[in-house]
């Protein structure tokens, strides 16, 4: 089985969010980057588990500049067999998805794994575009997946519950919490990662129709109003009259 895992890079959650160049660019100064948790903890690990059980290989793909290699090496250290980096700035989800679909189409991929969303832009867009470009079924927010022969049984999160579906390979899936248990790379993995192939390819030009022009930072909260624990009637009154939420 050829399993393609799309991995992305996001600022670490405690990173300071600030902008430069007239608020048109994210300020990367001093920002630590991590692999997007949904890609690392769930998508990648489930793909590795499937390979361990059924054979085949796990290929990690990232669309981004050379500075992303550190995140890609981590995917190799966790257990991906090889990696592809498409050398271009991820300016839009259409751009990213096009590069992933191009690779997947010409490499006989059985399952394309994405994360549920990137935690910085919260798009949830790439996976569904890849699926459409490849004319494949797309199962979003998968929290459990079993594969038997050519069929996968997948449990996916929907509002207020779950849905269990069956689908034949090939397909695209996006990984939510529960799909696998996080794996920490060990020393052996880290050493081996250095010798695994990381191929860099050039992107296809894409007409990105939605791109970020500028950012604004919303005003911070006002000082918290402390309420006397013996006077919950006062809290109720404020929620009704001041906040107008009840």
């Amino acid at each position, binding site marked *: 089985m050829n399993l393609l895992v799309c991995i992305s890079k996001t600022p670490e959650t405690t990173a300071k969010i600030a902008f430069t160049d007239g608020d048109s660019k994210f300020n990367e100064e001093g920002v630590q980057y991590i692999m997007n948790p949904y890609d690392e903890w769930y998508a990648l690990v489930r793909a590795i588990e499937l390979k361990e059980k059924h054979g085949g290989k796990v290929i990690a793909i990232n669309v981004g500049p050379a500075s992303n290699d550190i995140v890609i090496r981590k995917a190799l250290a966790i257990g991906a067999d090889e990696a592809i980096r498409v050398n271009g700035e991820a300016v839009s989800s259409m751009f990213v998805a096009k590069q992933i679909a191009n690779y997947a189409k010409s490499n006989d991929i059985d399952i394309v794994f994405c994360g549920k969303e990137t935690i910085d832009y919260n798009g949830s867009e790439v996976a569904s575009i890849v699926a459409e470009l490849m004319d494949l079924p797309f199962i979003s927010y998968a929290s459990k997946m079993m594969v038997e022969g050519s069929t996968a049984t997948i449990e996916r999160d929907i509002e207020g519950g*779950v*849905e269990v579906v069956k689908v034949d390979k090939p397909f695209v899936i996006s990984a939510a919490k529960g799909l696998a248990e996080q794996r920490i790379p060990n020393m052996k993995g880290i050493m081996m990662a250095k010798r695994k192939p990381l191929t860099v390819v050039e992107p296809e030009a894409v007409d990105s129709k939605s791109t970020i*022009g500028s950012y604004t930072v919303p005003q911070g909260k006002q000082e*918290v109003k402390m309420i006397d624990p013996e006077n919950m009637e006062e809290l109720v009154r404020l929620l009704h009259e001041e906040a107008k939420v009840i």
Partner: protein
Amino acid sequence: MSVLIFAEAKKGEYKKNAQEAVYYGAKLASQVGTEAIVFTIGDGSNANELGSFGASKIWFNNNSASTDSQVVSALIAQAASKAEATHVILSNTALGKSIAGRIAVKMDASLVSGANALPEGSSVTKGVFSGKAVAKYNLSGDKHVISVMGNSLQPEATGAAGIPEEISLDAPASRVTVVESKTVDGVVPLPEAELVVSAGRGMKGPENWGIIEDLAKVLGATTACSRPVADTGWRPHHEHVGQTGVAIRPNLYIAAGISGAIQHLAGVNSSKTIVVINKDPEAPFFKAADYGVLGDLFDIVPKLTAALEKFKAQ
């Protein structure tokens, strides 16, 4: 020309997210000087009410594969072409997220998912970095797909109901078989909830959740929890909110016995009003709160419930 709105039916009903999408689409249509057409999948029997949010036409198509992204996106794209739509508007729900990208590809359109306001000219904004910033997306081309973040605007039903009209479309065969669908009935799912009562490790154990459920009940709120609480099985996973759980933006979020770690805040800090109940004056959550109550939650929560009961009785 038109703005086509996909209204998502849940078991034949239109929830707030569908009303919001219709309202958003209708406002947008009047902004660009065209008509708003609603499209829905199902038997259309409850769809007439959607007219009152500003749609001039309501189309429906009965198809049973209503959660398969390939089928649903194909139907919407056909409806959009029939309507000569310049914009397709949908809700940013689980289904909405699985189809928005597909529709944008089919229509060769720009795509913004999770918009938090109406477009201004050729740009539209959405929250990014877990609500810590707002990004303005510039849209190019002549077709656009926009999904609307829940609770971004307050839909008003000021118009008249419409008459749903069936349209025939060619659906591709579904390649996904639904084996089972397990949803909790009678509670508003978290992403749509306007009132949420949430609790964390300060609860000490699952057996103590009665006071949280009582509070949620008087309010008509949905219950949520912090991640460790779901991880240890005290509460079901679908209640976990935060960076790795559900992101919510209710009008009111009450958090009891939750410290307010940054990963928790990431999923809840877009809430309009936040009430924090914690016994530790240093709990970081107080900095993100509108109202704080310092003390023992086992004392405070029942008192709050009683005060609300009194208020509701008036």
